[in-house]
């Protein structure tokens, strides 16, 4: 979260030059990834078999966040930048501040499936239109107010910088004709990544870049003051309500009807949500809390190593070998199994176990994790056939 945190502390402004644009896009990667451990905790802490609709809903949001991560990487690569996802600074230390949002918001913890967790999710996905107006002396009128605003800034930046670049090229034909000079082979496309909600498409010019930004915004916040995303317009898929409204449905226990508006709340069929059917966890759980030599500790450490491995594979996929993405999918499924193994076990600490608290993954990643992960990922990639080798 290094880049995003640094930028958040500054004033609201669109990126001014190429270097700053690349920083913004690296921050976008961090922002999109920020939600992954949060939503994973909410999802995998549901007792298996229970709360199916909620599970499938959170899963669908998570899959779309992975798409956003991929599109952000495509954007960064398209403008000649280099994604950097396999390092400790990439993963937030939870509880963590939501980037590009008001300081008055509480920090975001890792929570089990619960009304509180859903409230947190709603906070994260809150559309700009529903952000309460800044009030009170503590607010900085020039600061960032929402992630939607952040992407709007990127959008403005892309348009302005592309226009500048084209003008520069007109004056000096030796200068690049466009902002989008990145190697197209670095783009991750639909053959490499499939998430079923929307599609990973290559970013090659301003049009596809703006589309990528719009997809990220619309899937989260909804299109222009409606509850819907734009999957039907962009991808020919059935449209769904945007992330914020999917979470609202779970929180309220009711589906949206076709004519509901953002401010009216859901008025469709009732939804069955049983909050008790979830493992309760300690949001501040750390590996150090689990006794040395215990199986829970070993699994918690294994989880963190595996998570680092996933990021290392994504790093390879985002920096020239998009087909390595296929190796990442089994690791994601492995993380599911490792999560559930931890959640099933009561917390090793007697006092916490007496309160009904269970063990949980901690997402603590150190440089040591990444050193090992990078080596393992490289070995795995080297051992798997490239697309050309598979289909000569």
């Amino acid at each position, binding site marked *: 979260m290094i880049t995003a945190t640094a930028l958040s502390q500054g004033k609201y402004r669109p990126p001014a030059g190429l270097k700053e644009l690349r920083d913004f896009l690296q921050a976008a990667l961090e922002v999109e990834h920020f939600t992954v451990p949060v939503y994973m905790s909410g999802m995998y802490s549901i007792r298996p078999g229970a709360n199916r609709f909620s599970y499938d809903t959170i899963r669908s949001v998570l*899959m779309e966040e992975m798409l956003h991560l991929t599109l952000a990487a495509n954007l960064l690569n398209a403008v000649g930048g280099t994604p950097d996802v396999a390092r400790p600074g990439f993963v937030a230390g939870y509880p963590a501040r939501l980037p590009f949002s008001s300081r008055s918001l509480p920090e975001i913890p890792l929570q089990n499936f619960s009304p509180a967790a859903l409230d947190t999710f709603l906070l994260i996905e809150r559309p700009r239109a529903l952000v309460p107006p800044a009030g009170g002396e503590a607010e900085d009128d020039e600061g960032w107010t929402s992630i939607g605003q952040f992407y709007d800034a990127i959008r403005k930046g892309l348009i302005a910088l592309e226009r500048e670049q084209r003008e520069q090229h007109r004056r000096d034909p030796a200068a690049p004709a466009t902002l989008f000079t990145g190697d197209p082979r670095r783009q991750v496309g*639909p*053959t490499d990544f*499939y998430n*079923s909600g929307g599609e990973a498409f290559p970013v090659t010019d301003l049009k596809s870049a703006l589309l990528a930004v719009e997809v990220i915004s619309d899937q989260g916040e909804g299109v222009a003051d409606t509850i819907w995303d734009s*999957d039907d317009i962009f991808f020919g898929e059935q449209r769904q309500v945007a992330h914020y409204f999917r979470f609202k449905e779970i929180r309220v226990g009711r589906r949206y009807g076709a004519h509901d508006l953002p401010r009216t709340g859901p008025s469709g069929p009732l939804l069955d949500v049983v909050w008790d059917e979830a493992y309760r966890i300690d949001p501040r759980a750390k590996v150090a809390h689990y006794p040395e030599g215990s199986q829970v500790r070993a699994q918690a450490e294994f989880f963190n190593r595996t998570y680092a491995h996933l990021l290392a594979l994504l790093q390879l996929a985002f920096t020239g070998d998009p087909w390595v993405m*296929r190796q990442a999918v089994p690791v994601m*499924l492995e993380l599911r199994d490792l999560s559930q193994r931890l959640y099933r076990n009561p917390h090793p600490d007697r006092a916490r176990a007496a309160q009904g608290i269970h063990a949980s993954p901690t997402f603590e990643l150190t440089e040591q994790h990444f050193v090992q992960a990078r080596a393992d990922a490289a070995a795995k990639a080297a051992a798997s056939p490239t697309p050309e080798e598979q*289909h000569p």
Partner: protein
Amino acid sequence: MTVTTTGAQVNGRRYDVIIVGSGWAGSLLGRQLGRQGWRVLVLEAGNPGTETWPGYQDSLDTFNVAPIKVPNAGYRPNRAAPFPDVLDLHAVPGGYTSTGHFVQTGPLPYGTDYIRALGGAAMHWLGAVPRMLPEDYATRSLYRYGRDWPLTAEQLEPYLQQAERLIGTAGNGAEQHELGVVPERDYQYPMEEIPASYQDGVFHRKLTGKEITDPVAQLPYTPKVYTLPQGRNSTPNPLFDDGRGYRPVGAVGLPNFGERCVGNASCTPICPVQAKSSPLRLQQDFTDSVHVATRCVVSRVLPGRGSSVRGVEFREYSDPAAPVGTPYTAEADIVVLAAHAIENAVILLSSELANSSGYVGRHLMDHPTFLAWSRMPQAEPIGAFRGPGHTSGLECFRFGSGRKRRAPFRIEIGNWGWGWATGAPFSSVGSMVGLGGDAEGEVKADGLFGPGLRRRLGDELNRQVQLQIAVEQPADPANRVTIDPQRYRDGLGNPKPILHYDLDTRVRDGVYAARRVAAEIFRALGAEDFTDYRVRGDIPPLGHFRHRPEGQTEELDLGFHGAGHGAGTHIMGAQRATSVVDSYQRTHDHPNLFAVGCGSMPSIGTSNPTLTMAALALRSAEEIHRELTSLHHPVTAARQPVLEAAQ
């Protein structure tokens, strides 16, 4: 969106087309004809439900809790529209008995089942879509057995491609071209082939270059592993459709959930992530002029003036547990029976239609499937129970002059251990735990539990190799479906199918050859052969027979299972006297009555028949469209211009 309707609402109304059955054939026809603006009524005998997400989850739950995992384990019985289950068959001294939907009178059991529900038997299909060989269409001309098609593979080619697209097929075009079933070397499937399993790789390594002799065909063969084209979501092929690519179709009932195959090993009966294709995908895209009514069991096609038919009579029930229905009728310009080979025959026989040849119900076919099973040596696991039922096969025994001596067969390299043959892994647990006691009726002393059981299971299950060998059965008029409404009726009063089934000498020779070839393959793998069809006590295994082909010295205990490929019961041909339908699946006797499905196929070769059936259905859809267009052609008063003078 599917427009649903009820029997009561359509009672007495007239449509352009009535389609009986909502499986692959019915759904393809519904899709095509609806898109062309025709008003279509699809009548499905079974329950709806799986097209919604909770309904699909319910099927999944039903499957998960079923004690015995058979193809229909995910689908509840339906007293109003009953369908067969493989569990209806029981081995008894001297042979078998059959309970349930089928009445069986033949020397051997017909072991194939289907489902009557929205989506039809396709709800439990494996998803295998290999093509028939060009020579399969002309076995009488080439090999002097069976029947020739009135069509060639070449004529079906555009429809096969269209079917592959509509079903959503993953395959390797270069391999299939090498096999001789697709026309171009750079043939592109919509999606890349489902990855071959680890076991496929082991077969490839150990069998490449090895010669296997088939002692019955008296020919040497060099088996090669070919991946199977499958109707299952995989990586989209960017080269498909001249570079336009392909977008895999997701889950029905839950937007944006659809997954690509992730290796769940339960395709039959149900795919937990809806990677497997089904007719429900086509149905959700039906145009508004297609109306679907479920729980409507057609009992009769109603005759019209002259030789035409005017519609159908059906009963609609509201509770599948109570066989109580209300009778209704609906009329149409064209009636299409797409209710499965066996149910189509029952409807035609009940209606006393289309049978001037006497062939309705005859030529009942299946792919008698011989199972052979073995175990790899310790330290050479092959990773069973992962991925689709089979991802590759050995194709060489399907072709060529060996077919003059014995039925050809296709060897499927099974990925699910000894599941089909012995009921593994459940049977493995049972035998290791020591279920059933010893000869004195005491608890077995050497039963395993706990970590020891887990280790042994993990070791043994991982080394289980099973070959599923589908043998071609030619059209034999003695194998047939009949009805006897006086004696055998189901709950709603419709006649039950009475089956008479047997395997002729050519097929038994083929099964014998398959057994011997399997033994050699296992030897080449270094695997210990466990294949065993011997009689236990006095009870033979289901499908058991003893056989010795001419020229062989050893008589062997053999057996077979049903593959789920019912066919032949309204056979296709050019002559009215010797067939029921023509090449468009129009019945010879009634110009506006079509019987579509595998029932039309004069031969089924050695490949799963769905793709060929789908191609035939698409070809029929074109013909039906032409027929309807000519019926609706406006009449003009203007005289025809005189062309003869110009000639």
